[in-house]
């Protein structure tokens, strides 16, 4: 088992606010790693920094020994590192199929010139078809994103991130706003990704999802890593309980505690103080 993504002492400041404070993170190839933490812990910032969407002030990011520091987002994508967004950000003017096709083509610059002068080539969409099939979206391929129910929309966002056969995908709260049935469907889809050769870093508030599908879990609080390890270990970590689950919570909450720690059937566990739009 080799380390695929390696983050060393990553630091991000937003106008004086220390959003990430020398964060270390390693993700092993073909596993699912979880990243949790209360609101404002720096989870989305970490994704933004690793994928090149926000400038870093110190630290290094490597993907299988290839340094990614300073590369713009689209070149990190071509190096095999993709992401999704919390707000999905699908291309509303394109059909589901086109959303995926856009993401798996890797054109050279002169094609922007050639495309005006030749008949549009018939696109090779085997990768698109395979991904649609794998995520159960084949029937919806020609719909526009706005016409889809919530669950499939989330799956399209993931499909768009994995269609180009990346080595690693960073998922930013893929279960936000999904109901329990949709979340379970999502979990099934996620477990399939490592078998396809795709390593996953999953950020979510839904604890039953994170603890259920992840091989390792990393807990972030106020821009620092406070715990790392297998789900069972992290769940019992006193620092985690203090920071994330609230001091009052027991390691094994039965009724009143947050749904974080157990295999809670409600499935929509949210952190205390969370305010999701």
């Amino acid at each position, binding site marked *: 088992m080799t380390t695929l993504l390696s983050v060393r002492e990553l630091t991000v400041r937003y106008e004086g606010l220390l959003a990430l404070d020398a964060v270390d993170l390693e993700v092993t190839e073909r596993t699912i790693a979880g990243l949790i933490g209360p609101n404002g812990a720096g989870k*989305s910032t970490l994704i*933004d920094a690793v*994928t090149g*969407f*926000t400038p870093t002030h110190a630290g290094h990011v490597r993907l299988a020994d290839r340094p990614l520091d300073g590369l*713009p*987002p*689209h070149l990190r*994508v*071509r190096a095999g590192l*993709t*992401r*999704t*967004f919390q707000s999905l*950000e*699908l*291309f*509303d*003017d*394109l*059909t589901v199929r*086109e959303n995926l*096709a*856009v*993401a798996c*083509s*890797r*054109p050279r*610059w002169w*094609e*922007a*010139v050639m*495309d*005006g*002068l*030749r*008949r*549009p*080539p018939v*696109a090779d969409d085997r990768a698109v078809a395979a991904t649609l099939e794998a995520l159960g979206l084949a029937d919806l391929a020609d*719909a526009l994103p706005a*016409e889809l*129910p*919530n*669950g*499939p929309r989330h799956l399209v966002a993931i499909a*768009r*991130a994995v269609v*180009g056969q990346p080595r690693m995908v960073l998922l930013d709260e893929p279960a936000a706003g*999904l*109901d329990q049935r*949709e979340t379970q469907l999502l979990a099934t889809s996620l477990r399939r990704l490592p078998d396809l050769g795709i390593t996953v870093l999953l950020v979510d508030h839904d604890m039953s999802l994170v603890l259920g599908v992840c091989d390792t879990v990393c807990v972030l609080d106020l821009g620092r890593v406070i715990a790392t390890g297998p789900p069972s270990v992290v769940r019992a970590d006193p620092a985690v309980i203090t920071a994330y689950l609230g001091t009052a919570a027991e390691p094994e909450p039965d009724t009143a505690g947050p749904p974080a720690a157990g295999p809670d059937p409600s499935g929509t566990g949210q952190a205390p103080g969370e305010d999701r739009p």
Partner: protein
Amino acid sequence: MIAALALGLVLTYRASGVVNFAHAAVGMYVAFAYYELRQSGELVLPVLGLPDRVPIVDRPTVLTALVTCTLLAAACGILIHGLVFRPLRDAPALGRVVASLGLFLYVQALVDLRFRTRGGTTFQIASMLPEGSVRIGGVVVFTDRFVLAGLVTAATALLWAAFRWTRVGLATRAAAASEKGALLTGLAPDRLAALNWAVATALGGVAVVLAAPIAGLDPGLTSLLIVPALAAALLGGLSGFWATLAAGLGIGMLQAGISRFATTADWLPDWVPKGGLQQGLPFLAILAAMTWRGSSLPTRGMEVTDHHQVAPPVSRSWPLPLVVATAGTIGLLGFGSEWRLGLIVSMVSAVLCLSYVVVTGFVGQISLAQLAIAGVAGFLTARLGTQAGIPFPLAPALAVLAAGAVGVLAGVPALRIRGMTLAIATLAFATTTEELVFKSSAFTAGLGGTTVPRPELFGLDLGIQGRGDAYPRVAFGFLVLGVLVALIVVALNLRRAGTGRRWLAVRANERAAAAAGIDVRLAKLSAFAWSAVFAGAGGVLLAYQRTELSVQSFVVVQSLALLALVYVAGIGSVTGALVAGALSIGGIVTAVLGTGGGRTAQYQFAVTGVALILSAIHNPQGLVGALHSWRQHRRARRRAPEPVEAAG
């Protein structure tokens, strides 16, 4: 004056989030009204359709006139807010830009129609400020300029104090921060915004009135003061009054300094346009500053998604060009002289409009520089043909390629700025090109004119010139038609290919596009390049059609009018460009409707302006977009008795 106009812009922007391109134009109208009132005692009303003018008093004094016009300006501000920008509060950026362009065209046409201005100003403009000069540190400063600067500074101080300490100022700031919040606290955001508009317009109007003796009053130039004013407002971050004041005064002084330098420096070669230097150089600096301050991708939390007109999918490339070719052939062979000219004008406009469809419709980048790019190609064609003796098909081809390169240059700011700001930057680019390139004697034979050589291929005359009914010559018509059809095919190819998909992805969401591995910079630059090629082809055709070119051939105002037309017609599709071409001024629709008289163009500008505002409010999808939605709606109803599961 720039500072005063910029302050008004900041004020309206803070009040309702609108950058009002028509601000200087409205100020100009107020100034015209003032001088007309001083001269004839009649107040000219701003609404076409109402009685032209109202007599106030026989010989108004300076004070009466000034007060009347301040009130008039304030009323205009309230009117503009209520009729145009309030309904557009939640509209996309492009819609608001288009509406303010519409207002600009309307006011411009209004001034041309109501005040007999062609051929020089007819007013005696007497200065109201003390004349004379003082020496400060060895530099001669004219008193009137000094007093004007003082007045603007006083206005700034007043605004700043009002915003800081009064209830209304506080409320405006609250409303700008959160309209709903302001509503909940019992404030009326609409009334506040109207008040701000009134103050801003009055300020702009009075500034133009007072500055007219210094800067002159010219319907072609005064309204374009909006460009430096916008620049100053932008440098002030669209919010700080003092920063805006400093930027405005700074730009004014820089221009004056360059002007003196240019007239005294003998070593400057002849081809450098002296007047242009004064206008052009500051913009280059501003463009650079704006570009440098932007960011290459929108950051998290920035408003990234905007509503766009639909860009209907295209399944086949051949039907539309075929229809156009057939219709064009029938028209060229069947029409008489007048209609044929209309058809040719329309086809040339359609080519220009295609360039907007590519850059604004497909990629969502608002560019106001397209006609300037067309001008570069047009002048180059003339230059290459007459001076370098390069024959017909080669000279225009080179010119079009050069236009493509210029387009890439115009697109550079778009890599880091977007939306309203980009629209302003491209406007600055267009003005700079106009001032520095078109006015340069090396490139365009200066302010005179340039004769465009007749296009000829294998001894076949493809020129437009002919005797009597032979003008415009059918052969030229076919040249235009050929270019149009070829470019339609190119545009449809682009739309259908991977490039078009990537463009739409960038238009929809830049961050997501980058996350999908799309090189956003490449997508934008390639779109600017392609659209410049289209604009260049249009410019070349325009040059051949006019046979003579002058600086007036490619003025910024026409660029605005064209963009507006395409928006009304539907900027998301090639068909939209064709419809816009048909509707263009002097085009086939005008020819068929058979309007005559020299004032038609002005009325058409005014009507276009109103149509623009109305369509930005009521039909943001454009004609073609609306048709497309209607068709899809009907198809969906016919196809699906059982609707797809709608919500999860």
